[in-house]
């Protein structure tokens, strides 16, 4: 069992729905993102282009963040999801610099979206589950996955660019998709073996 995700870059339209869905689902304060879409401009006028690159935790097979965590707050579940136990994190931020994918977020404070009005009722509920002074990250919406659902970013994507499933099962939708189309991993040469694949063509 190894959960993974394939993101079809030919389908992604950069609408940031996944970014918003992630924030809503996990109640992430203003200024922090567990999932986001990078907008990459390239070329020179008039031959220019914009590429979108969704970013989240790669749930590496060999996570550099796990290798540096001094307290054991970071662990990898049997299903391959890399998680942080907030109660065990002392906030040293070693993992933030160890992650080659900038996927780790240090929660300095719980900044509400409308500071002048204070936290909204929804923020009050969500912030109660978060700690400050610790590091957090995308956990593939593990509570949803544990109930047999897909991560919030996957179900919300209007172009169905994201496919989530078991990379170890050759018959899963994601495995068949990756068998059919070449999937690229970010910074593959680092030996981390990410579980998130980008479908380029």
């Amino acid at each position, binding site marked *: 069992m190894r959960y993974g995700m394939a993101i079809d870059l030919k389908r992604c339209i950069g609408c940031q729905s996944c970014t918003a869905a992630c924030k809503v689902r996990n109640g992430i304060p203003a200024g922090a993102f567990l999932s986001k879409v990078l907008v990459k401009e390239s070329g020179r006028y008039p031959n220019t282009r914009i590429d979108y690159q969704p970013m989240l935790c790669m749930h590496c097979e060999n996570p550099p963040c796990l290798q540096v965590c*001094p307290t054991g707050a970071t662990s990898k579940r049997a299903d391959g999801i890399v998680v942080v136990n907030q109660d065990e994190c*002392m906030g040293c931020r070693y993992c933030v610099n160890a992650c080659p994918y900038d996927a780790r977020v240090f929660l300095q404070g719980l900044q509400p979206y409308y500071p002048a009005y204070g936290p909204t009722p929804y923020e009050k509920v969500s912030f109660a589950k978060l700690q400050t002074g610790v590091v957090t990250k995308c956990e593939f919406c593990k509570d949803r996955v544990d109930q047999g659902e897909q991560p919030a970013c996957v179900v919300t994507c209007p172009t169905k660019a994201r496919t989530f499933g078991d990379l170890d099962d050759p018959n899963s939708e994601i495995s068949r998709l990756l068998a059919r189309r070449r999937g690229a991993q970010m910074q593959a040469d680092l030996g981390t073996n990410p579980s998130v694949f980008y479908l380029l063509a």
Partner: protein
Amino acid sequence: MGLQESWGPLLAWDLFLGGAGAGAYLIAVIALWLGDPYRRLARPGVYVGPVLVALGALLLLIELGQPLRFWRGFLRPTSSVMSVGIILISLFIALGFIHILAPRLGIGERLQRWLGSLNALFGLGIMVYTGLLLGASKGVPFWSTPLLPVLFLLSALLSGAATMVLLVVLLRGGQPKEVQEAADRFVVSLSPIVTALVVMELIALFSLLFLVTGSRTSTVESVQFLLAGGFAVAFWLGVVLIGLLAPLVLAFWVVARRGKMATDQAVSFSFLIATLLLVGGIVLRYAVVAAGAKLPPTL
């Protein structure tokens, strides 16, 4: 992707204090082995070494997001470079304070020397550790070079020697004449060692900057930031000129004029060299921490 923002000046101070403290302690222990009259110069280094390292550890503690959970860092001693460092630093501080209190605890001089030697080994571990700590950060390729522990070790030895020189010179007055003479000889005899270490550090620093460039785009960003970017003035002025070239010229001068220069003049020169080295030491640590550019999101 830009420069890392997770670790700031406090970490640089921690790395510097850890290196300078462990380095000063090492030189103090060497003085203990040299026997009389140098032995009597060692005491301040034995005191200051563990105190500086403890101060650095305290800064690191303050820097934690959850300082009260620092004890969790002891739970998995082998899980991370940082865990190993936490254990090393704790052992060094504990043994160091036993060494400080040794006369009151009735520990004999012979045992003190051996205790100090063991602890100096932990100190050497701390000096190297400061480089390995940064090196395990895969997201910052600029730090992932085997030359970084070498550079930090050399810098720590220099900062340690400088700390000892300042201590010995400042505490010289009011001592018996033979101790004062030993102090002068000790300080002046460090000049050739300082010269050699500075040359080695210059080689290590520029080899690092040269070799690390070109391995990845982010390392180019780091090197540019130091040599020609936002940190250029502090790098060339603080690290290279004040921290290395000026001490090199002055220390070489003291070595070359040995026998011709009056002792008190050589001591004043050494005091100046030590001050410059300490300034260079902290700016170097700050430069390396600040120049940590993160990997870009290349596919």
